[in-house]
């Protein structure tokens, strides 16, 4: 209970940190996907050299590809960070071996987005025992001793953000039809997102009228959306959990010629954000699941190794856990998020 509370606090603070960094900046980013987020503070003064190993699952999804790219770009910014990136794999046996190689190399820190948190726990423990600072990203280890710090997204919060936005838009329409296209249904993260969405809708007297699940891929998104449109002759609002599968969802909607509803995205791809900015599509908003978690992991690793703390915290050490906020991106604030969005 108390831990959860601290986490929330930390999350709010760290996001605040990101926000301050962005306010007042000129909105137009340079071409490409340079990661402009992140504060420039006294902590950025070069310190002792830090060697960081980075390992993540295979980049078979735009979000996952962005994780590694953002981490690499972040490391580039620091003259005192040397980043060793091994390529993503979905074979836990191989990922364990990659971490073992980092241990053999005696790196200072390892930033690890495990394919399977529990399966990578033993080798992370081994790394910690060897005196290496392990930063766990996105998928949690099975043991609290396996990582110095953990950076997590907020899946429940995503659902809450999406639901709250839908409530605001449909204010007063008590008979509104709300639809939801989820990701892989059996995953806990999908269940968390849906629960958050339902809870937030419940607060304003709405409910999810139609719900289907896809599999995070374009093709499955198209299939699920086509089914949903058949099942629901009228829709007022649609939340799609994932912008990668959203490409397929959008295609299905186009094919059906329907346009009576607005759509909220998920995860926050650059595509969808551009659509929101242009205002020419059904997407009115999307909820960010930050693809900069790996980049934050790099920063935390560097600070932890150098013995520094997070700049805006009174705390002397890097916190144990950072849970990231899931903000709603609309036309009003899209320029702040577009630079860190991932390309599907």
């Amino acid at each position, binding site marked *: 209970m108390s831990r959860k509370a601290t986490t929330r606090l930390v999350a709010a603070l760290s996001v605040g940190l990101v926000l301050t960094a962005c306010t007042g900046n000129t909105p137009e980013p340079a071409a490409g996907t340079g990661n402009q987020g992140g504060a420039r503070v006294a902590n950025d003064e070069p310190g002792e050299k830090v060697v960081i190993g980075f390992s993540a699952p295979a980049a078979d999804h735009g979000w996952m590809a962005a994780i590694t790219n953002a981490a690499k770009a972040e490391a580039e910014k620091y003259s005192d960070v040397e980043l060793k990136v091994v390529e993503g794999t979905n074979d836990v046996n191989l990922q*364990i071996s990659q971490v*073992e*190689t980092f241990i053999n190399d005696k790196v200072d820190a390892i930033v690890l987005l495990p394919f*399977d948190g*529990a*399966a990578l*726990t033993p080798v992370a423990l081994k790394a910690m025992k060897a005196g290496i600072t392990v930063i766990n990203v996105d998928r949690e280890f099975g043991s609290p001793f396996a990582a110095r710090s953990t950076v997590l997204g907020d899946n429940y919060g995503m659902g809450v953000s999406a639901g709250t936005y839908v409530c605001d838009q449909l204010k007063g329409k008590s008979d509104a039809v709300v639809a939801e296209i989820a990701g892989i249904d059996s995953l806990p993260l999908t269940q968390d997102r849906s629960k958050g969405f339902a809870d937030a809708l419940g607060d304003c007297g709405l409910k999810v009228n139609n719900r289907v699940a896809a599999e995070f891929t374009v093709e499955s998104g198209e299939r699920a959306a086509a089914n949903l449109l058949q099942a629901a002759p009228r829709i007022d609002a649609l939340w799609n959990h994932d912008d990668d599968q959203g490409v397929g969802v959008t295609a299905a909607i186009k094919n059906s010629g329907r346009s009576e509803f607005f759509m909220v995205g998920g995860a926050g791809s650059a595509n969808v954000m551009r659509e929101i900015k242009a205002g020419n599509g059904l997407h009115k908003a999307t909820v960010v699941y930050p693809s900069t978690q790996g980049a934050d992991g790099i920063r935390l690793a560097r600070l932890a190794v150098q013995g520094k703390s997070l700049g805006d915290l009174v705390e002397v050490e890097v916190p144990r856990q950072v849970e990231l906020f899931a903000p709603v991106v609309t036309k009003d604030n899209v320029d702040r998020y577009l630079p860190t969005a991932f390309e599907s």
Partner: protein
Amino acid sequence: MSENTTAVRPPTAEQPQRGVSALLGSAAGRNTGLVVALVLLCVVGVITAGDRFADVDNVLTILRLAAVIGVVSVGMTFVITGGGIDLSVGAIVALSSVWATTLATQAMANDAHWLVIVFAALAVGAGCGVINGVLIAYGRIVAFIATLAMLAAARGLAEIISNRKTQIVNVPGFTAFFDASVLGVPVLVVIFALVAVVGWVVLNRTTFGRRTFAVGGNPEAARLAGIDVRRHTVLLYTLLGVCCGIAAVMLVARTTTGSSTHGGLYELDAIAAVVIGGTLLSGGRGTIAGTVFGVLIFTTLSNVFTLNNLSISAQAVAKGAIIVVAVLLQQRLARRSGA
């Protein structure tokens, strides 16, 4: 091997095939080629990564990585030598790992002995192997199709049993045993070595092995020579299933988890290792030593790439190239011996 390691032999009249072609033509020469390939890879490793590669810890890292897929590959060598193929090994590893780590199994293991986990995995592996074998031998379903069905079914069953959740092992005796080392060599590597040695002896020194060659070389001739080809086929797939069970135990020990995602694409890794080792995909010729070298070549390659921060995609390209070169070489040798 011994034929090639002897000192320079004086040329004799009975030896018209001297030089490289004769060397490559012999079974021993085939392995020499693999040894050369592995040594070259190691040289590349030392040049690019220096002491980081040549370090004892790094060698153990390579061997640990090789151990799990190595055990599967040894079993796969038997099935391919016997004229079959098994696409379901990865799925069987997943199912065995899940079944061996359910709460019920773990409770039994904690009450009785941690070996319960091992036996559960082996039994599930063997069971899947028996089903594969019976479908192929008695149901007369093509091996490719039968094991493709098993691939889908076993992984699906693993997902149902585990509810797609990763199951963490909390049996202290089990993890302690497999975490240990024997004279500095990790237990997982010792198991791989044992499986390889036993596999070699069985394939080359027993009636079972000889029958495997016969069944793979010409099933009809083997049948008419009095070998029970169907029963033997079932035994081959069962043996591979047991190897998958062993691999599952090793993977459970290495990750302290059972999961329906374990063993992804192991079938391709295993088949690739077996083929570059020199075992004929059409059956009738197989070598355990070659398979072990094949596994070591692929894992060393993977390690050299990791040490140099090179991409897995480039590694996949290199892997593909190695397979093609190995098969081309194999065809040339086959043509020469057939002429």
